[in-house]
């Protein structure tokens, strides 16, 4: 992946110096006027339209005093905060807050547990290390969808404790902490930190916990970035889990609650658009801030299979 970034950088440097060479892309795109460039530009514009129009429509719809129809339009008719008023009346902010609490709590817990687990797997040689790693891999084979029915039973009555988590934010926060993905990302990265650094610290009398917090963790920042952006987007994307974790519609996260906003007597699709916009913004912000980490994570994960 670093090779990818390097090459992109290289290529960019080359572009600044000279015109794009025919050997810089598989299709041999070159700058300057040519029929193939005209076709390419047209296709790019169409592609951008196809992928951007739904998002523009959400922004427009959230601020448009359109008639009570269920239209989806990218041309604003009359600017208005009417949809926002209606959406706030219908509790959109409460659902939004619920989502934020869940994604915040879930992410912190998920990252904290995976740092601890990854540290143990990557930095110690001990009997059972392979089994531990295998167990975390296995959690990735068991997404919430596949175990939804028994999981909802477990959430209704936690084994041994008999606690009923359903209807609380913990019914979503705790299960997402059990995802093995972040653990594997962190472990892979921590494994590459040179042992000698740790050994010198050990000579200085650094203990187990401080070794993790002040030596290994600061060196694992890139992996933390990947785990954070993936964790955020995946928790925010959850649909079935918050659905089965709720006692009723009042416990829904914003994404699940959107369903209830489909029609509004006064604003048509306006309330749904406000809800969608709010459900869109956090992932958009995280994406724009941590774009490099996201790309790095996807590409490295994909090439390893």
């Amino acid at each position, binding site marked *: 992946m670093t090779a*990818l970034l390097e*090459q*992109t950088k290289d290529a960019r440097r*080359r572009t600044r110096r000279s015109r794009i060479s*025919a050997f810089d*892309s*598989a*299709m*041999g795109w070159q700058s300057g006027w040519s029929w193939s460039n005209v076709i390419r530009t047209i296709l790019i514009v169409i*592609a951008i339209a196809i992928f*951007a*129009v739904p998002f523009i429509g959400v922004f427009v719809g959230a601020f448009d005093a359109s008639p009570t129809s*269920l*239209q989806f*339009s*990218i041309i604003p008719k009359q600017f208005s905060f009417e949809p926002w008023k209606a959406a706030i009346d219908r509790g959109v902010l409460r659902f939004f807050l619920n989502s934020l609490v869940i994604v915040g709590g879930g992410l912190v817990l998920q990252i904290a547990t*995976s740092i*601890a*687990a990854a540290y*143990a797997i990557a930095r*110690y040689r*001990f009997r059972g290390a392979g089994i531990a790693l295998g*167990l*975390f891999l*296995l*959690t990735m*084979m068991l997404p919430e*969808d596949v*175990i*939804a*029915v*028994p*999981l*909802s*039973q*477990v959430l209704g009555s936690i084994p041994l404790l008999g606690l009923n988590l359903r209807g609380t934010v913990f019914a979503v926060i*705790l299960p997402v*902490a059990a995802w*093995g993905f972040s653990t594997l990302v962190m472990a892979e990265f921590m494994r590459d930190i*040179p042992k*000698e650094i740790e*050994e*010198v610290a050990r*000579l200085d009398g650094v203990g*187990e916990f401080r070794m993790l917090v002040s030596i290994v963790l600061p060196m694992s920042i890139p992996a933390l970035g990947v785990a954070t952006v993936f964790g955020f987007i995946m928790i925010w994307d959850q*649909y*079935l889990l918050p659905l089965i974790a709720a006692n009723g519609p009042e416990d829904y996260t914003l*994404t*699940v609650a*959107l*369903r209830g906003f489909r029609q509004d007597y006064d604003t048509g699709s306006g309330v*749904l658009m406000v809800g*969608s916009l709010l*459900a*869109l913004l956090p*992932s958009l912000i995280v994406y724009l801030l941590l774009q490099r980490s996201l790309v790095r994570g996807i*590409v490295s994960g*994909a*090439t390893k*299979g």
Partner: protein
Amino acid sequence: MTLTDASTPAIAGAAKLRHSWRGAKPWVPWVFLAIPLLFALVFKFIPLIEGIRMSFSKVQPLLGDQFTGFDNFARVLTDSRFHEAFLHTVILAVCQTITAVALGLILALLFEGASRKLQIARTVIFLPVVTAIAVIGEVWRLILQPTDSGLLNTILHWVGISTQQMLSDENSALFWVGLVGVWAAAPYNMLILLAGLVGIDRTLYEAAAVDGAGRWRRLYYIALPGLRASLSVILTLAAIRSLRVFAEVFILTGGGPAGSTEVWMTRIYSIGFDANDLGLASAAALLLLLATMILTVLARWLTNRKGAQL
């Protein structure tokens, strides 16, 4: 980073020290592992075991569960609505995967390049990947309104196609569900294929040009073979993911109209949470888990074998 130089005697001594010192406290890693493993146990493995147990029982909340052997599995395999759900899931998985990979490849070829403009364009194209599936589903449900004023119907009118019923039409609903899936998945494929394209050796292109190969021959003989690894990864991931498709279908159609878009997961949902037949739903979920596991192992085996041949 001079610390990484391990040849000094002090560090060799440290290595020895570490060994004996670590051997003395073998429980230390388990302290770090305890809580993460507890979470995995309670929220992953206990549900899995519970699911296996329930799939072999008739689940009766008050009377106590009754062991029924393979009864639930037999019911899943003979249920005609599960047959239909299976068919829809496979059709959707195959068509959607192939189309999304093809579209991803076209996008990757189109958007390959290092200019600032292209980078911004790629950022826009990539938006669906980071957007919650619920938002995608709800917005597309509106775009696909079956009325004359629906956005897609309006666009279709421009090119002379009459108003379509889209998600409300039994015969075409599955197609439109698949289309939304392609829209959501293609940008992800684009990113992975772009990474594959960047990794292809530039001198191969120059050599091909010297040999007189045009752009399409170059694409066919150099770029596509160079993308083989990326393509096989995408295909496996997409196939496994699309077997578990749930939220898009649940939001767009809820499995309707008249069960025409029912997939395996929506069927499990309605059996498990609406009809409350936990045994039957667990058996169906277990079969899904087995299918994805077999697919994963098969894919890994195939890629390894290909790797060995190379």
